[in-house]
């Protein structure tokens, strides 16, 4: 059954001259990946990330039926309503999406879990759950829409605000920022990227790489809040991000079902092999950076913070793959949620055996 034409739905007469909409690998058009209309401020970075998520899922040919969209609370967390209405979504409570997603994953690990969170949601109230989710290696694409403020509660500094960045009311942040990428690497996350909502060319392949990764994947995206953190002196404003973004490399994604066509000169490109045989191709720019070295990756995060650099790209990818939570738990292949009664209720003889032991 095609998604865009639900069974039994009245056939909509196509405009005679229109070209048929392009379809993806599973025969779906972009329409199958659309969500409800956004209610965010015009120009909000988060809306642009929503578009890139739609593009990534569409181009990857992932069925929306297989996706579970998780989020916390915040402008950013609202956006799971604005893409893929054909997927189930769970907009839970502030900061706890990582925990809720953990449960959903354990219930049904055939679902592709994507979580959209904010810097307040992840780096303050939900920091503990975020870190523990990573320690467990929960297969999930965890997108942080990072604007340095709490948008939904009207612009208070968040814990990712840079030292020296100014608040709308003029005062400076003196406190050390939390770098979600550095923390993620520390916690054993094997796919860590930083990007910018305005860098479509980079963000889409990074999201695709995250989707292909198959373990915890963190994509920290600087996403300007045009209403509360877009002034002169803010290091998360649109202008600052545009002027200062310094890509580590040019990112290309080659899915496993497509041949590599680009012709990269030897020594200029690092190839990142992903578990499903897809590849990320990282073409060198000025930086000579290899994201497969954990120590260097952490060094990079620290240097970026010290020198106030806005470095983007694939910050870390582990050359060795750790076991996912389901593998650690040796779970059956079928979703736990759908196991029939006879597989989850031991036989009466077992109960008799247990009773005997307590006599």
């Amino acid at each position: 059954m095609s998604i865009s034409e639900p069974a039994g739905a009245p056939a909509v007469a196509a405009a005679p001259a229109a070209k048929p909409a392009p379809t993806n690998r599973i025969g779906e058009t972009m329409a199958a990946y659309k969500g409800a209309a956004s209610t965010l401020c015009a120009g909000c970075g988060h809306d642009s990330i929503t578009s890139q998520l739609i593009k990534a899922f569409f181009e990857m040919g992932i069925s929306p039926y297989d996706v579970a969209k998780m989020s916390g609370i915040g402008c950013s967390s609202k956006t799971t309503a604005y893409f893929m209405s054909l997927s189930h979504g769970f907009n839970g409570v502030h900061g706890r999406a990582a925990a809720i997603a953990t449960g959903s994953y354990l219930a049904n690990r055939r679902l592709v879990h994507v979580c959209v969170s904010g810097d307040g949601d992840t780096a303050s109230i939900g920091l503990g759950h975020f870190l523990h989710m990573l320690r467990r290696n929960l297969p999930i694409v965890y997108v942080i829409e990072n604007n340095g403020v709490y948008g939904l509660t009207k612009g208070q500094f968040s814990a990712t605000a840079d030292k020296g960045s100014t608040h709308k009311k003029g005062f400076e942040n003196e406190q050390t920022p939390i770098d979600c990428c550095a923390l993620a690497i520390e916690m054993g996350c094997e796919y860590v990227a930083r990007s910018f909502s305005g860098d479509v060319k980079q963000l889409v392949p990074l999201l695709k790489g995250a989707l292909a990764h198959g373990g915890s994947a963190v994509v920290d995206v600087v996403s300007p809040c045009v209403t509360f953190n877009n002034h002169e002196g803010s290091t998360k404003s649109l202008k600052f991000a545009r002027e200062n973004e310094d890509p580590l490399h040019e990112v290309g994604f080659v899915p496993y079902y497509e041949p590599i066509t680009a012709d990269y000169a030897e020594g200029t490109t690092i190839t990142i092999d992903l578990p499903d045989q897809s590849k990320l191709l990282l073409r060198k720019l000025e930086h000579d950076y290899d994201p497969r070295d954990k120590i260097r990756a952490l060094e990079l995060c620290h240097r970026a913070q010290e020198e106030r650099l806005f470095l983007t790209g694939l910050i870390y990818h582990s050359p060795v793959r750790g076991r996912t939570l389901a593998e650690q738990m040796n779970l059956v292949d079928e979703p736990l949620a759908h196991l029939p009664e006879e597989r989850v209720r031991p036989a009466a003889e077992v109960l008799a055996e247990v009773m005997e032991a307590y006599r």
Partner: protein
Amino acid sequence: MTASPSTQPAFRNTTQDNEPVINDVVIQVATSNGTGSQSANLVLLRTIFQMGVPVGGKNMFPSNIQGLPTWFTIRANAQGWTARRRDADLFVAMNVESVEEDIAALRPGATLVLHADLEKHLTRDDLIVHVVPFGRLVAEVCPDARLRRLVVNMIYVGVVAWLLELDMEEVGRAIAKQFSGKPKAADLNLAAARAGHAWAEANLPPHRPFVIRRMDRTAGKIIMDGNTAMALGLMYGGLTVFAWYPITPSSSLAEALTDFMAKYRHDAETGKATYAIVQAEDELAAIGIVTGAGWAGARAATATSGPGISLMAEIVGLAHFAEIPAVVIDVQRVGPSTGLPTRTSQGDMMSAYYLSHGDTRHPLLIPATLAECYEFAMQALDLAERLQTPVFIMSDLDLGMNLWMSEPFAPPTRPMDRGKVLTAQDLDRLGGFARYRDVDGDGIGWRTLPGTRHPKAAYFTQGAGHDDAAKRSEKPADWQNNLDRLRRKIDGARNNLPQPAIQTMDNPRAALIGYGTSDEAIAEARHILATQHATPTDYLRLRALPPADSVREFIAAHSRVFVVEQNRDAQVAAILQAEYPDLAPRIGGIVHYNGLPLDAHTVVEGVLSKGSYAP
């Protein structure tokens, strides 16, 4: 209203005519924790059980790992009353830390088995005292000096066995069971018990005031703690996801579950697990994991105690409002704050019933017995999926961690109830659905699970206001409709929850409502009231909230009703008063809140002092 003639415990056993009291004794052993006395106490308990005499064991332990005073109480009673009794008949004093207070607290005439090293602390002459040279005795049977601290406990088992005329064959069997798989340890401990027994026989006066004689009242029964029973219920309830964070007194439930699942819930062919147990980073995560799992269609539960319940509040509200199944087991301890973490109470009734902000209310199942721990765990998983809401099981430390007798559990007879879930085929047939629409008139909508491959399957789950199609809405009417429907849903469940157990007597002069572990003390108190105070009572044991219609009828049929509770503020009495405002003036409370399990005399005194009806 009659004045209370006597508040003296009526269970003071006397030996006026020098005849021993048969099968009615309270034994208390004072040791320091971490010395291995638990094994010795279990051997004593099990021996009495094997001799067919009803018995229960309560451990009063400190919030500490090693070295602080701990008391184990065994009550054997032919009639089956094993509630806590205030005073011991036979006291074994092994602990220097507590010995002075222990001796001071004994009732006149009690038997005291005193460690010879502690003799200097003996200041009373109204006790029957047996000073035992434990140090010498253990040195004789246990050459390895390092083991003596542990083995010495088995010497008192032998002494007590002689004092109670326990069958040493049964002591041997109990030791073999306690140390099964460790024959060396079993031999050493048996030798110690025999040494104690032989010493007592040779040195103690022949008269023994309390004895145990064989009966047949434990045949076929099991002895277990409630946490283990609850874990079994979860396993048989088809639980697939469990998340927890360690906290006394619920940790042993999670640990028992982990053991059972590891043993019995791996696929025969693949050896893979049909369950996931997560030790979460905190209780917020635990309830988050459970809620996420319930949302995606798993049968999920968590177990905690009061402090964890407090942390879970926000997500429980989300699960209530977004209508997601979850089972929350509260093994209650004493609060507020850290409180008395190793003591028992029923202090979370109110906070659990209304947990979270806004207008929230949750079904509570309240087990009083091992069998109910097992059954309610299964039932809670069904109810949570049926009602699409968090369902609480309100246990407590006394039930969860102490030892109780029970008939063996029966395998489940009903299939699991997976509640209202629409499949892709259903959606084809129906052409779509509205997640929160009350199509069946019971306030419960139909849901789909993520992963359902159908264009009409998806809906957006949120804690924010929504209409019946799950679309975000801030319209006043949508909000109010939703809240009204939720009330109908929870209220409507009242007669599908475990129903009250009602016991009446002829010409009742008082009426009692109780729940949970208060039951055994109430049962004993009713017997005392009827036989010694001419006060027959009617009794309703509440097994769930919101209360069934029969609770209202019971209250309406009595001019005064006392709710017996193990908390200060008579929390369930207040809930019932709110539930039945017209009957509120009739509802009073008899409360007990010192951290010890409820005893019958507190209830007897409560009824007599608060006033039974005029004869």
